[in-house]
């Protein structure tokens, strides 16, 4: 048990540290990388909880797909300021291996200590078949839905964690997702839809407003008339617009992250 908690602590602490890194690092590439790391650690925590499907999704979708996409975009657009990498080379060369080793240790610990995992230590045992796990998983998932459970509650869990015989399972999860939790699931899909619409609108409209600059008498709270070309004000306006665009993008990014 102590080791299990130790593993959890390592995952959790690393997740926190790397999340802080995401905020603190100046270079967006570093930020993205530390986010990948954070996601990986969170996936580890999921595994500890016996939710291996979510862990897999976490790694595949977030770390694998979205963040790699981010990195591509960043590198293609050359958002990163140039020289910072050089200055940090020493730090990189020193810190990188340490992190690498830490990550390796984590993985090894997970593999070796799987007997301590909450599923009753049965992952490596021969009777740990898919079917057995599924049954355990179904019991867990169904019993969560206390409304449908006619009998006494099967979960007595307070803060002391989840029943030892519970293991998440993909099929059961899917079944639950499309029956009991259909409603929030569908609403979540609507959330994704409007996030997409919003991103498109905000991105598209910048083009529209660029096209239609020919409105000298625009009125508004802070919309003055268009300053003369090449004047100081024009320069200022341009700077501000690009700033706000950058802010928008940052926002968009976070919106996508939320998915």
């Amino acid at each position, binding site marked *: 048990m102590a080791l299990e908690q130790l593993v959890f602590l390592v995952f959790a602490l690393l997740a926190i540290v790397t999340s802080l890194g995401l905020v603190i690092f100046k270079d967006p590439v570093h930020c993205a990388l530390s986010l990948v790391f954070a996601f990986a650690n969170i996936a580890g925590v999921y595994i500890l909880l016996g939710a291996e499907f979510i862990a897999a999704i976490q790694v595949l979708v977030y770390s694998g797909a979205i963040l790699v996409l981010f990195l591509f975009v960043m590198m293609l657009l050359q958002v990163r300021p140039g020289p910072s990498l050089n200055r940090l080379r020493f730090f990189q060369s020193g810190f990188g291996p340490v992190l690498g080793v830490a990550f390796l240790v984590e993985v090894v610990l997970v593999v070796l200590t799987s007997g301590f995992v909450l599923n009753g230590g049965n992952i490596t045992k021969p009777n740990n078949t898919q079917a057995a796990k599924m049954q355990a998983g179904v019991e867990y998932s169904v019993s969560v839905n206390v409304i449908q459970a006619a009998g006494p509650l099967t979960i007595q869990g307070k803060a002391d964690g989840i029943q030892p015989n519970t293991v998440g399972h993909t099929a059961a999860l899917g079944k639950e997702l499309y029956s009991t939790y259909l409603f929030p699931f569908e609403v979540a899909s609507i959330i994704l839809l409007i996030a997409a619409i*919003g991103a498109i609108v905000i991105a598209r409209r910048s083009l529209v407003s660029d096209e239609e600059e020919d409105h000298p008498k625009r009125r508004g*709270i802070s919309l003055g008339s268009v300053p003369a070309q090449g004047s100081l004000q024009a320069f200022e306006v341009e700077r501000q617009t690009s700033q706000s665009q950058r*802010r928008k993008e940052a926002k968009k990014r976070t919106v996508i992250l939320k998915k």
Partner: protein
Amino acid sequence: MSFLNGILSQVQPTKLSFTGDDFMYILPEFIVLVTACLLVIVDLILPKKSRGGLAWLALLGYVGALAAAGYLYYADATISHTTFSGMFVRDNFTLFNEIIFLITGILGILISPTYSLKRKIPLGELYSIQAFSVLGMMIVGGSGDLMAVFVGIELSSIAVYILTGFARNDRGSAEGALKYFLLGIMATAILVYGMAWTFGMTGSTNLREIGRQIASQHSTSSNMDSGITFAMLLLLVGFGFKIAAVPFHVWTPDAYEGAPTPISAFMSVGPKAAGFAALIRVMVEGMPTLSNQWTIIIAVLAVLTMTLGNVVAIAQNSVKRMLAYSSIAHTGYIMVGVAAYVNSNGVDTNVARQNDSISSVLIYSLIYVFMNIGAFGILIYLQNQQGGAEVDDFNGLARWSPIAALAMALCLFSLAGIPPTGGFFGKFFVFRAAINSNLLWLTIIGALNSAVSAFFYLRVVVAMYFNPQSEESKSKLVPTRSFFLTAALVIICVAILVLGLYPDPALKLAQDGATPLFQVVKAAAGQP
């Protein structure tokens, strides 16, 4: 195959989470959803010139949803039906909230076009995202489960984040959107954390089950688990952000000021009412046993909220910002109603008190929708005509547009709580609930606050009626007519007067709306 069959036989035959009948119960939500999707699609197909018709489509959707909600009410007025395995509850509380949100949506559509066209805001997307936001709020109002609360709040909030940033070439809009977004997701994180704690403590996300669990724990052990208190605090903080209660209000002024004015009007009303709906659902259905704790917290927050909102509003020169602070203050008044909640413990007189408390929140939210959107509506009118949003821009409004000035005065007096407007009745009812729950001190603070608030509302009235129009503003005047805006203002003024002079039907509906919550509470406490 046999393997799969084996699995399926072992899995308990889970029935579908809804039937066709159940589907009836989310008809209003469904209509709004279809409308929102249609708006996106039709916007693409329609030629640019005829896009004004989108407003009619959106209105049709909202009115259709209202009609559907009304049909469900008249089919069975005492309905209380859970569907989607406890996620969605169709009862009168849901109904009243739907009315609030749909009216918000309708008025939000009506006040938008002229302003948005002038500022190159794409109308199709505006309408559809707004409709999605309304959908989110409706889901919150009808939620029976923490998960539904969460996804509903997220749907409405994310839509509003996008709307806030709609005026892209306006720096204020971007800034407001960013602030709103960042603080909003922080609040969401806190909220989810609180939900996780609640789940951990009670083993369920279903609100009624949570209530039952807490009640049974409460009855078995005299000292309550501090974990559940912690969960409650986290939830309160999360909802506090959503309703803009002090000290979680910091995003409000910038977001309201930065957003395009029709959006400010919409977001000062809708998400706030949704926040209150969620607060009441979670606290009253899920944690009635803890009401001694959360009512006192809410009472203290209400004092802070009212006082800060009103005092800071005095110093504002921008009417938009002033209305932002005034909306904070109104959050405080509504919170007074929530704070008046008393857990019944089987005492029948307390049931009346509970009903007063919740129905006062509902009726105040409804009235607040009208008066606040009305005030913003005149602001939009003014911005359409001459661009500014300062108090000085209101100078002499009574001269060049007496009807607009009259409407503004009506809305402001209503906000200040002066009869014979709806705002007075709302305040009367909230204070009544609070006094009945022995919160006289709170109502005295509330009354003093509304006197303070009269001061800054009066400033605008003074500008409109007593000050002459400046030459500069005369030169800026560009007469603009908008059928939709006029229609909205007429509806609002009539509604404010009707709610002030003959509030009984609305009040009855609100009282009906509050009733199902207590049946749930009673059931949780094991009473018949």
